[in-house]
């Protein structure tokens, strides 16, 4: 479904991603692990159109979406839940969700109901300015907003970051639930323990390159991974 090949990205003169290739199968829940600054977020941002890669291709169902502008990537069917959430603070929760009407992807009442089913808290606070939400609620809103564009692939950038453990659990439960409903998901995560407990396949990035990949089982048993991320 999503196939990344030889992706290269840099910040200024610094090369953060150095020729990464991998695929995300339809219906799968994949994770990219890596320590702080390994290049995993840059990878995700480059795929999602938030950062412009300097080389390589990102094929989504056979069409190359690398180098498309952010909103066009969304329109092609790839939605990002960015690090820091980036919800539109002055807009109400509902307005944030309904912005997806401009994505050209349905975002019908059904989807809205689905989002509210998934995160009942959002329904309660639908008329509140989203800037007043708590961090966890904002994360829910960011996921809801991405879902509203009915993406073929959902990308999440560090969904656990800055959240209380109980909220992290809620968020990951929602991720798993979505995956069970057939949503293809790619998560970038620093918290390897929780990531490996939910995913079907994982990649480990170090210095902008994939160093290990495999099933969660295999990764857990990999001594290098064990030492660096699970120890």
């Amino acid at each position, binding site marked *: 479904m999503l196939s990344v090949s030889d992706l290269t990205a840099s910040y200024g003169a610094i090369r953060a991603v150095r020729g990464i290739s991998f695929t995300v199968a339809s219906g799968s829940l994949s994770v990219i692990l890596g320590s702080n600054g390994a290049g995993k977020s840059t990878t995700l941002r480059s795929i999602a159109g*938030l950062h412009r890669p300097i080389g390589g291709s990102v094929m989504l169902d056979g069409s190359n979406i690398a180098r498309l502008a952010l909103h*066009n990537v969304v329109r092609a069917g790839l939605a990002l839940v960015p690090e820091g959430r980036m919800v539109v*603070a*002055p*807009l109400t929760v509902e*307005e944030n969700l309904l*912005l997806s009407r*401009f994505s050209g992807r349905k975002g019908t009442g059904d989807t809205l109901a689905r989002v509210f089913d998934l995160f009942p808290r959002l329904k309660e606070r639908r008329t509140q300015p989203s800037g007043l939400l708590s961090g966890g609620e904002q994360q829910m809103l960011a996921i809801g907003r991405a879902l509203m564009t009915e993406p073929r692939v959902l990308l999440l950038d560090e969904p656990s970051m800055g959240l209380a453990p109980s909220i992290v659990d809620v968020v990951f439960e929602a991720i798993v639930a979505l995956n069970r409903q057939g949503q293809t998901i790619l998560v970038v995560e620093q918290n390897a323990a929780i990531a490996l407990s939910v995913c079907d396949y994982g990649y480990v990035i170090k210095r902008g390159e994939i160093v290990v990949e495999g099933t969660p089982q295999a990764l857990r048993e990999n001594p290098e991974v064990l030492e660096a991320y699970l120890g």
Partner: protein
Amino acid sequence: MTLFLEQLVNGISLGSLYALFGIGFGLVFATLGVLNVAHGAYASWAAILGYFSVDYFGVPFPAAVAIGVLGGGLIAVTVDQIGFQPLRGRKTGMLGALITSIAFLIILDSLAGMATNHQSWAFPSSSFPSGMVDLGLIRIPEMQIIIIVATLVCGGGIYALIQKTGIGAAMRAVGWNAEAAALSGVNPRIVILLTAFLAGATSGLAGVLGGAATSNISYMLGEGLLLKGFAAVVVGGFDDVRGTVIAGILLGICEVFVAQYLSTTYRDGFTYVLLLTFLVARPRGLFGSRDFMRA
């Protein structure tokens, strides 16, 4: 009593022009983060285009207004794309766009000066509604009614557009953070173009109507509107169209009465002291919210 009422209407009409002009100026500041000193030039150009279309092609007044409004909008879009678009994403803050807007102020005003031969023109009084309407107690010029109605309609319409519609939500979203809006699939560029057009068009409307009502169409028409419209926007609160309209009208009323009962020489001082007072003591204005400034 008649004098008081007539002066009140004069004030409302004058203030309506400030308000109408201020709507677009405030919209661009609140959504696009641009302090656009060239905004007045849009009004001048709209009035000039309207006048030319009457003088050369003899179009009826409503068509002249439409041409002016369209022209103002298109000039605003052009300025935005040449002058402001390249700076977006560069984080030059307010300064960069302010400088390019100064550049466009110089360019547009000079061109307008050339186009009008640096002189002031007026719509022939037969070409626009220049009569008086008798309301029993008082008589009001037709243009004043048109200006007041236009301001209320535009103000109400734009308020509804921004606060109640999806497009408005997209405009507010792009204004806050273009990337966040794009995450929902909103094309920020189109929203920016739309905002710029809307701002230029309302400025243009103020220019044509004001130019007709005061029989003064010149390249300097926009300058007065800019200073007073700026005051209206600050006093009303930047992110609220309702505030701009109310503050603009209040300023107009104040100006007329200060001129009549105190002195013309204090009139502008009164407006600007009010402006400074609000900037220093209550920057969110009469009605603006302080919760979210532009990101």
